């Protein structure tokens, strides 16, 4: 069931009705049932993977919780233990917990890796077995990438790690835990929620709130607008550029990649807004996942504004563990002792960041192009960390304030261009194609193609290009207002009823004309062109 389909709207409407009508103690059951129905609409196989993850991480959480509980009990009930004995007990508990955590993480990350790389493993196995042409049929067909696995695996690994660290209490009700894992709005594209933030909201009873319903509907409409009116239209042009890049000059290719940046933002953040809006209608606040990322002044800032939940997860569950290993700490200390010792402060974080972004790249996809994508971002952020101090000195010596509007504008443009370059690798079907497109962007620019009508032949047509452009302008205006601290929903609340009605009407009309009805129009001219 696509979140931009009529079925989803009807599903959500029915769910809200049932959710607020049932006894409050049963509300979480309604959510769980709805989530399972939603996921089952994609087939049975995805549910099998989901249940595997839910069971293994639930069990791990229980075991970790029991270990913590046992240790606490042991220490409380034996106050006479010596310091060494207490230390030994803690160490033993920590060791057992590490094994449990490692097992849970390996099982699930291993499953994630297997489904991600199943497509690549088949031919490799075929080569090893001396069976060229073998693609892993039968063996790997069950491992084919399954819906949402990247998100719920990370979410549950986060839960297990939080329990391990003692930040969260283990969940003792499997059905409730299952709801946390499979809560339907977040299943397909996140955000990756934290147990402590999401779980209590899922199981708490909720009263109907007209305000939540209102904000939820507004968010959903905004999400639909970004996704269906803007992103789906730009996708046509982007696909043409990427599929037939050899026919275009570098200017058109670069424009196509920039449009991809906007398309991806519209699609991803639009989808997230629909998800968050749906959750808000049910009284549940989900993590913000995008915060106007193209206003970032550096790549590091970009990744703090783009797919925020993934970045936060990587930071908490990968970056900190790496940078706090004994080896990392030793390295840092060693660097600080040498000349240029300030490097010690940044070298380890930079290295850890680099590793994190490689993992991030691979998390997105199995191809080499994704690896390069991760390396590209890792290099940018790591090097900016290493060069931060010299840049600060430069600005100071030049008498330029970093907050100077021209400097800010330059930084925003620079960051956007750097992000765009990275998108060559994330969108192209292979590393070779990405490299070819990038090379062509600089060696065969052909700027006249931007003005000679080539853009009108990228599959979209003038009318839809105008609609897409208008949509982008609306997105830009809204983003600028939000960047300046304006809360648009609350501003609208203060307007007169007439204005609010007009905004609703215009929004719905725009969504209807340019979104809902965008597909399916078959002009008669196509049929009768030669009659």
């Amino acid at each position, binding site marked *: 069931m696509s979140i931009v389909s009529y079925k989803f709207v009807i599903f959500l409407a029915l769910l809200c009705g049932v959710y607020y009508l049932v006894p409050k103690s049963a509300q979480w059951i309604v959510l769980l049932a709805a989530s399972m129905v939603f996921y089952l609409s994609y087939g049975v196989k995805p549910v099998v993977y989901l249940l595997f993850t839910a069971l293994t991480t639930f069990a791990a959480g229980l075991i970790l919780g029991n270990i913590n509980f046992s240790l606490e009990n042991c220490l409380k009930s034996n106050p006479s233990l010596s310091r060494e004995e207490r230390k030994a007990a803690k160490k033993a508990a920590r060791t057992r917990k590490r094994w449990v955590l490692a097992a849970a993480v390996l099982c699930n990350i291993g499953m994630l890796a297997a489904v991600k790389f199943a497509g690549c493993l088949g031919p490799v196995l075929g080569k090893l077995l001396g069976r060229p042409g073998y693609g892993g049929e039968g063996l790997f067909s069950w491992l084919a990438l399954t819906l949402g696995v990247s998100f719920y695996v990370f979410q549950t690994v986060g839960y297990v790690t939080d329990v391990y660290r003692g930040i969260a209490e283990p969940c003792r009700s499997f059905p409730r835990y299952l709801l946390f894992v499979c809560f339907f709005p977040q299943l397909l594209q996140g955000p990756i929620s934290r147990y402590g933030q999401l779980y209590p909201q899922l199981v708490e009873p909720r009263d109907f709130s007209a305000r939540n319903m*209102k904000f939820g509907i507004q968010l959903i409409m905004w999400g639909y607008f970004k996704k269906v009116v803007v992103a789906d239209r730009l996708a046509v042009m982007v696909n043409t550029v990427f599929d037939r890049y050899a026919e275009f000059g570098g200017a058109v290719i670069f424009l196509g990649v920039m449009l991809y940046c906007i398309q991806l933002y519209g699609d991803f953040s639009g989808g997230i807004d629909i998800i968050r809006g749906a959750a808000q209608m049910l009284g549940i606040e989900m993590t913000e996942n995008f915060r106007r990322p193209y206003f970032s002044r550096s790549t590091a800032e970009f990744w703090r504004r783009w797919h925020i939940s993934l970045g936060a997860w990587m930071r908490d569950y990968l970056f900190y563990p790496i940078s706090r290993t004994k080896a990392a700490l030793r390295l840092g200390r060693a660097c600080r002792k040498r000349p240029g010792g300030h490097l010690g402060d940044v070298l380890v974080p930079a290295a850890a960041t680099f590793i994190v972004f490689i993992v991030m790249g691979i998390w997105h996809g199995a191809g080499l192009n994704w690896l390069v994508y991760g390396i590209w971002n890792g290099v940018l952020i790591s090097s900016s960390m290493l060069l931060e101090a010299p840049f600060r000195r430069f600005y100071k010596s030049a008498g330029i304030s970093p907050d100077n509007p021209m400097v800010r504008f330059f930084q925003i443009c620079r960051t956007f261009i750097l992000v765009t370059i990275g998108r060559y690798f994330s969108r192209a079907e292979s590393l070779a194609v990405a490299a070819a497109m990038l090379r062509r962007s600089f060696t065969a620019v052909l700027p006249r193609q931007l003005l000679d009508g080539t853009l009108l032949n990228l599959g979209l047509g003038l009318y839809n290009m105008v609609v897409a452009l208008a949509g982008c302008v609306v997105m830009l205006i809204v983003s600028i207002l939000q960047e300046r601290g304006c809360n648009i929903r609350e501003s609208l609340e203060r307007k007169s009823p007439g204005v609010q009605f007009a905004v609703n009407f215009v929004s719905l009309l725009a969504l209807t004309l340019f979104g809902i009805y965008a597909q399916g129009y078959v*002009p008669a001219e196509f049929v009768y062109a030669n*009659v």
Partner: protein
Amino acid sequence: MDSKKWLLSFAGAALLVALLVALLNAAVDPFGVFGDRLFQWHSANTTMNPRTAKIAYLKKNFDRYDSYLVGSSSAAAYPAEKLNQYLNASFYNVFFYGSDMHDMEAAVRYLIENDEVKNIVLSLSLSCAAGYDWDTGDLTGLMHADVDGSSKFTFYAKYLFANPMYSFSKIYNFLKDTYLPQPFDVFLEKTGAYDKSVRDAEPIGDLGEYLAKNSGFTQIGGEVQSLDYIDEYLDALKSIVERCWESGVNLIVIFEPTYTERFKAYHWGQVREMLEKTAEITDFWCFSFNSVCEEPRYFYDVYHIRNPLGELAIARICGDRSKMIPEDFGVLLTCENVSDYLDGLGDVSVYASTLSPWKVDDSGYTARVPILLYHHIAPLGDGGATISAELFEKQIKALKNAGYTAVSFSDLIEFVERGKELPEKPVVITFDDGYLSNYEIAYPILKKYNMKATMFVIGASMGKSTYKDTGIPIFPHFSAAQAAEMAASGLISIQSHSYDMHQRAGYETGAARENVLRMKGEREEDYIECFRRDLELSRTQIETATGRPVNVFSFPYGKCDTLSGVLLREAGIKATVTIEEKNNTIVKCLPQSLYELGRFNVTEHVSPEELLAMISE
């Protein structure tokens, strides 16, 4: 506004949007399902979806019709007007593009249940057995609920809440609609057929040129297509036949003219089975497997026979012997003769594979006809378009000695329409503008050598030696009496070069209308009215003088376009000439081969030998 009121406001806005969409669609009615009271633009509605619009039209107009053509788009070639004439009926063409037997059966059932039907002409094709009950699922292909019995609520709701783009598109098209059909309004309201006025006015001549413009004929692939629905086809056919028989409806079944090369993509065994089993159910006229179907020029494209040939098919069925119909075009197949007939054909799939449109032998039904163009004849030529009397006579003599026979346009028309053979080496001699020298010098020479000629007169200059009423001297032009004398001889045909659409720039007070094309800034309606009036004046003037019909037109300066061609055709002009220097190929049964004929401009620089070489290319 508090949140509860906001929710109500939102619901109200949503309802308002839905209401607006519904009102727009109901008012503009792009598919014609709601009666189209506002635009009453049936042609556009039918173009959008003939399955809904034609039925909606018939529901209001059943009393106008008592007979129907049913089939897919190939049925459009059979002219309702001719069927009306032959069968004394009132036909409407209910064809739907992409129609399958399921659609046809449903349509016949609907027609018989809702009207007193006298005749049904059912057009069958290979596609009838290649698919069954195709359902595009979109609004442009949905069958009317009254026909297929589906839920009317769902049907009307779908169109009420259809994509508003259809309505906007109809409004936009309405504003830019023109006299000529456009891709958004290709149907004729009264007959339900395609409006082929543009395609039927396009000039056709040499096969190579035609294939270059219509590459579809040279790109027919051999990917085998299977007739997987023969059983469903036969069941539907049987149902149609039985229903017609029970209701006393005269059913005429036609197997459409199929471009022969298409058969290479079918298993001949399946085609045979289809035809043999069809004959077991009903007699039918078969218009495939003949010389007509091997000639690309007789088809608009590889799937659709041209209207003139469709007219001949109807003439064949109705026994009209006044028409020239190729002998092998159309045979009535019955259960008694179908097997022998098909045996006689052999494996048509194999035969079709040997065909190539480039290798068509058209010598039996085409003729190569050069046309000469003269203007003023003077005792001495001027080195340009005016040639000397001496040279003119030498040229005429050379033509005669070389075995050329001067023919008239009537002879060409007879060749095309009635198959009357032309002489071995025909040539048409023409004169433009109607100069007095044509009467004083050329006419006697033509009489001497017994050579026919056609003179195209400018009506406003007839009998004059000054430019209209300006007093500016021009070459004198022959008078109506002189035209009558030449026409009475039987050698000279007087035809139209327009009445006053060959004006001279500089001689007119305002902008000069130098040719028949629409002038810049001129409204289309005004242009059409002006053109028709001019032609009528020219015609009346000439026919009054000569007593003979005007059915040939020479474009001033050779300038022509689709609209002028269509207007001339509608006015009954059967041949048009330009000044493009080329030889001409005319084709029997193809009236369009007489349009925009080229002419060799004969000047003082053309010696008799050069003239002969020019026209023998």
